[in-house]
């Protein structure tokens, strides 16, 4: 199943571009940007210039939104940078398969089973909460064809 799903991102979002251009100076801290080809959240933004009368360059430090790696880049403030389209959607968790895949239900009732339990503390918490019978709501982050669960919340009063 994994293999079939992996090919999915090529045509993800009905062929729309995964990124859009934005002037470097208009980027915001905590916003998103592509650094070294990876979608990143901007954690640090500073400007510098070559010489006192030079024009500004923006120094960006970002954290890969999927794997947490740090990337840096520097770019003239008047130039454009690629900004990834980022989407976060909430799903209800209905099951966890033996090989660690989640069964998630979207608002419209569609089911998907292509996402694994996230790594680290979040994954451990997710499994133990699910095992103890809590109804869980998973937030899935999606960008540039990649997806993963980034947050979990007990689904108490969320009957929409």
């Amino acid at each position, binding site marked *: 199943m994994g293999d079939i799903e992996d090919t999915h991102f090529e045509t993800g979002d009905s062929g729309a571009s995964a990124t859009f251009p934005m002037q470097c100076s208009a980027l915001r801290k905590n916003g998103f940007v592509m650094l070294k080809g990876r979608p990143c959240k901007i954690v640090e933004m500073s400007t510098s210039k070559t010489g006192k009368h030079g024009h500004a360059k923006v120094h960006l430090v970002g954290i890969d939104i999927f794997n947490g790696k740090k990337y840096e880049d520097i770019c003239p403030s008047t130039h454009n940078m690629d*900004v990834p389209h980022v989407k976060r959607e909430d799903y209800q968790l209905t099951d966890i398969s033996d090989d660690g895949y989640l069964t998630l239900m979207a608002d419209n009732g569609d089911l998907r089973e292509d996402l694994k339990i996230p790594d680290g503390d979040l994954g451990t918490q997710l499994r133990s909460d699910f095992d103890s019978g809590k109804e869980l709501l998973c937030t899935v982050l999606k960008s540039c064809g990649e997806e993963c669960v980034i947050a979990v919340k007990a689904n108490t009063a969320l009957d929409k």
Partner: protein
Amino acid sequence: MDNSVIQTLEAAAQMLMAPPNLVTSVQRHQAESVFLEFRNSKNPYQLCREILEKSSSDYVLFEAAGLLKTALIREWNLLTDNDISSLREYLVNYLLRKETPSFLKDKLLQTIAVIIKRGSINDSGRDRKALLDELEKIILGSPIGQQKLACAMIQTIMQEYAITVKSADVGITWEVHYWLKKSFEATDLKRIFRFTVSVLEQIVRSGVRPEGDQALLTKQLLTIVETILCWFHVSPLLSKRLIGDFESLYQSDGAPALRLNLRWKDTILKPELIALFFEIHVHVRMDPELANPSLICLVQLARLSGIILSGNNLKEQYYDNYVNNFMRMLSLIQPFDREMLGISDIYCRLVQFFTPPMIAASPPAFLQYLTTYTCHCIRGSIIEEGINDDTVWREALNKFLHTWSSLTHDTDGFSNEAFMGPCVEIFNTYLQCRLAPPDGTRGTESSDGCNEDINDDIHEDERQLHSNVLMTIGAIARKAPAHCCHVLFTLLTERSKRLESQLQLMHMGKLSVGGGEQLITLFEDLHWILMITGHFIAVDCVEGETVMIPPEIVQYSMSENANVDASLRYLVGESSSTDNVDPILKIMGEILRISMYEYAALEAGLGSVFSPELSATISWLLKIWANSYLMQQSSQYSEVLECAFGTGSQGSVWSISRITRRAAAVLRHLSSQPVAATHATQLLATLAHNHRKESPLASCEEFLSLVAWEAAGNNLPGHVRRELHRAFAIAATYSEGEARSRLLTSTVALTEKLQNILNMDSDTEPVRNMLADTLDCFIGVTEGVHEVGSVDEQFMMLLGALEKVPAIVFKYHNYPGVVLPAINLLARSAKRMLHSVQKQNVNKFLEVCNTTFEVYMRWNSGKITSIPQDAEEEAYEDICAIMEVVGAIARSGEGNVGPTCARGLRLLLPMVTPPLLSLPTLALHAYRMIRDLENHDQLTNLPVEDFAMVVAALRVGLTAVSCDVSTLCCDTITGIANKVRTLGSDNPYAMSLLSLAELLLMLIIKMEIPPDSIPAAGAAIYALTCVKPALLEGLARQLIHAFAANDPANVPRLEEAFTVLTNGVLFDGLRTHKIRFQDNFDKFLTSVRGFLIVK
């Protein structure tokens, strides 16, 4: 005593000092425990003596010396006078007869000093006097090694007496420290001074320059004199806290002024004394180690003040004598560069401590030397800027400039004629150092910084960085206005022509874009000329503050009596003849021309060539000019200036329109250059602030088209747009009727835009970015709205946006990039506007907050996310923002804020778990909010279970390492305790609160609370005891009981300490008893810590 103990210690020391490959960690731990036990030995004096005599291990010697001191402090009350004096004699003899390494010597000297100081409580300094007698004899006639030791001993004793509040813990309370210091000052300080000075005099009279050991001894003597002249003579009128602040300030930064009482009269006012100190300096100045303390002595003598100089022209005589000796020294020596700081300090102090008429009566050499050295330091400091990070020259220059700024400011000092020559010389020197050749020398001796990479985060804004120096240079220049006006005008005209032709050539393609070195040199020259001109014609200020035109400028303009018409025609560029034109208008005309060349260049597509730094400087200059010159009251103008810039004058309308047009062009073309864009928006905000009758921007077409341009949409960066909307909002508050509605269209357009975004179906990244930007712009509006009685109107407009916040937080709950500005908008509005809007509007706002809290809670309570460690603080920014909302609502105290605060708190408390509270920023926000809520009586109105959560949070906060947080917690506890006192100690709130008392007391006793929070903690203990008077006694019994098991010997001392704590105190919450308790609390801590804490 058997030697086995020494052998064990030496073996353990060897183990500790051995390299890691030779010993195992178990062995090392064993060795450590040997020393830990050794440090706790009781009555170790004989043992320590043995060690000092017999051991050859440095480590063991060091430990023994340390133990001597701590044991003495710990067991002082158990020792007999004989024990102590024999120990003291032994130690002095030991040091005199043995060559000891400095680590050991310092420790033993300190032990002697502690004995002397504690001993003087009972013998009123008899022993000290005897020791000083002995030491003086040694200095006068013993071998040099012993002389040096004697000096070191005097220094250590003085050090021990100098500090009272934060002195090394020797087991006595502050009052005793203080009393000992006073008695030391009265009996021995002057004696040491006279003796040391007489020894120094002998050295000078010998005519031999001190070298080797003799130089070291001289340095010690000088340091003793320096310490006495820098002595902080405590005034009995000050409170302990103030004295503590002074003492710590004195340790970190410079000495206090030399304020002496009448007892010093016979010593310090002897004319020969000053002469002697100058002689000493001349004698030792070749050696930098000696020159430094001798210069400090001279500086201190230049700031003699107090009762000692009152009456009978004493002050004049002292000053004349000092200055004559000072001038004589300057005529004899060629100062080294390293002496500049001291010399500048002497000048600065003289001017600060003596009256302008006395200064003005100084010999002519006073101003001559001052001018020469100032110019010298200007050159030095500008070379230094380009070479390294040292600030020696800059510090000296600052002191000289400080002197000048006092001198030029005093009206009863030197005459303007006396200033003329020196001021021209200083102005010319500074200008030359800043200009490139051939006019100046910039970059010839060190880099001018034009080619280095500049990081905006590290480098301060250029205009800020130099403003202190330039402000004084400007004040100096205004003393010679004719000369400076002429020079600046000539330079501006020449450079502006060059700028025009260069830009033109570039536009026509005849000069390569980039222009190379030549263009950068021109930019840099203009940058400096404009900065100097700015500080010459006006005074820099913060936004919103109106500063008058400097009076010298107005006078000069009046005295020139130029032709109004010719001047105006020159200003607006209708005529190029400078005949009969007012000098200030000439300069202003040239500046406006330069700004128009910039405008033309930007519009012609040369934005990528023009220097953002220069653009910023132009905006800055126009800003400070507009602030002083535009539309002032007519009494502040000369005739020409009023016709040009007064209210309703054509010149002002014309200038404002040009300035606004240019600022708009900068925003359009240089918006990606932070420095240029920031200064352009600041300029607009300053123009908007200018509100004689009505904001001049309200009727300025250029400004209105800027408003329209912004409403139509553009690609300005978010933070620039926020500032722009701030300027719009300021202008709107300062205008009326039709004009106001036109300006308010900016907010209307913003509201429409927000609505459109929310109506959009597509939820994509660009849309979210736009939304975040728009919310930011509303924050700008909030910040720009001023309290001039019209807040409600603008608040209602803002409310349109605020009411959408809950929906935004709901729809975009997964996108912190949107949620954060939305909540920030609530926080800022609460902070800036809530206290001045009408009640029904406050209620509307509270409604919005309630809904927002609910929505936020719905999506975020119990949520677990994967946050990388290094992004933790940022991930919780939204929680901090909600705390700010709650805090600001509580502070506003408007309407019925209680329920909203309670809701916010109920949302927040379960979220801020102890791990979150360990994040410093978040903790500070949280406890500040809790304190604010307490201050406005919101905590005791909470349901009791919520209150318990607050108490739990306080429990976490008390153990925080940050002093701010633990002080906030203690203050909050005190506040709540004062409120619940009336409810009785069995009230559930009181019971919940009282559960903190034990923890608090233990933290205090174990010194686990930051030292600066101790006073707040003491107040909290008192307030808690007032709630339940039996509390303290119960806790004391508990503590004593716990001690009885482990350390029964100390139980009586602990009992006594607790008796001291409650002695004479009633727990009624009244001020007298509160203060008495604080005093007792200090005594309690001093005694308890003496024996409970063995580190």
